[in-house]
């Protein structure tokens, strides 16, 4: 983690780093899978043809319902914020009707200095776990704050 963050007191509760924040249960429906594939212009029948062989496009992990809880991080310079990037990890196929437990946690907080000044990054991760215990995937979202 960058030195600047370590020196700033009270920016966030460090005891929350890596700890589960919230957990919800969702069911991935065939309708949602097909809506997503259609929305991104997908044409491969394995993602677009309704029926028992349909699997969810891996990108769907980024739009599945997730817990709303977040660990608050207050960068002192922050005036604007935006979604800085996402990482998706796709371990197993998601099928229609799969019931998933979605678990969120804060995984990283750091700063960088760019041409436009300091930037603060907060990474929250969501894990998606099927009823049989298989982690089908996870998504790490990075939010960036700037002056």
């Amino acid at each position, binding site marked *: 983690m960058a030195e600047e963050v370590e020196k700033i007191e009270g920016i966030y509760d460090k005891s929350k780093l890596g700890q589960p924040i919230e957990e919800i249960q969702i069911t991935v429906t065939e309708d949602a899978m097909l809506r997503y594939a259609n929305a*991104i212009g997908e044409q491969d029948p394995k993602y677009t043809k309704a029926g028992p062989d349909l699997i969810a496009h891996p990108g769907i992990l980024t739009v599945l319902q997730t817990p709303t809880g977040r660990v608050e991080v207050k960068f002192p310079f922050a005036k604007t914020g935006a979604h800085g*990037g*996402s990482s998706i990890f796709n371990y197993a196929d998601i099928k229609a009707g799969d019931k998933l437990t979605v678990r969120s946690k804060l995984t990283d907080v750091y700063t960088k200095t760019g041409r436009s000044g300091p930037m603060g990054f907060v990474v929250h991760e969501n894990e998606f776990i099927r009823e049989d215990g298989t982690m089908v995937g996870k998504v790490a979202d990075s939010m960036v704050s700037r002056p």
Partner: protein
Amino acid sequence: MANSVDYDAIDIGDEAPGIEVNFNLDQVKGFLGAWNGRVDSANSRFTNREQAEKEGFGGNAIIPGRLGLAVIARAVQEWLPDGRIEKLDVVFRAPTLQETKHTASAMVTDKTEDDSEIRYEIDVYLEREGEDALRPQRGAAIVVVKK
């Protein structure tokens, strides 16, 4: 494996054919509503041109970063249809405008192989058409093709 793809012939330095996209407001709304069929009013920088301009995004509404990520995943998956995208990291470097032509593509940067699988490491990007060829989204992926 799909008989039409010669995975042995895809090697370091090879580039995907790419996918051209040009998202409009209806498509963005379809993406935002993919999970439950509803569009959250908090997403107005994506659904309202005037709001996007107020927030400093220039002359048009923008697309969600996750939609650009999804198109990148599509481009990779179409190029390597039997592959599983095990990991996809994308940084949202700049706003991606609606009603603007972009190309999603990828290039192999490493390839390893054993008896059971071929593993590709791939640079990925979404590139805006035009003289400055801006790449508002860039990242990397790992794709595994089972033999």
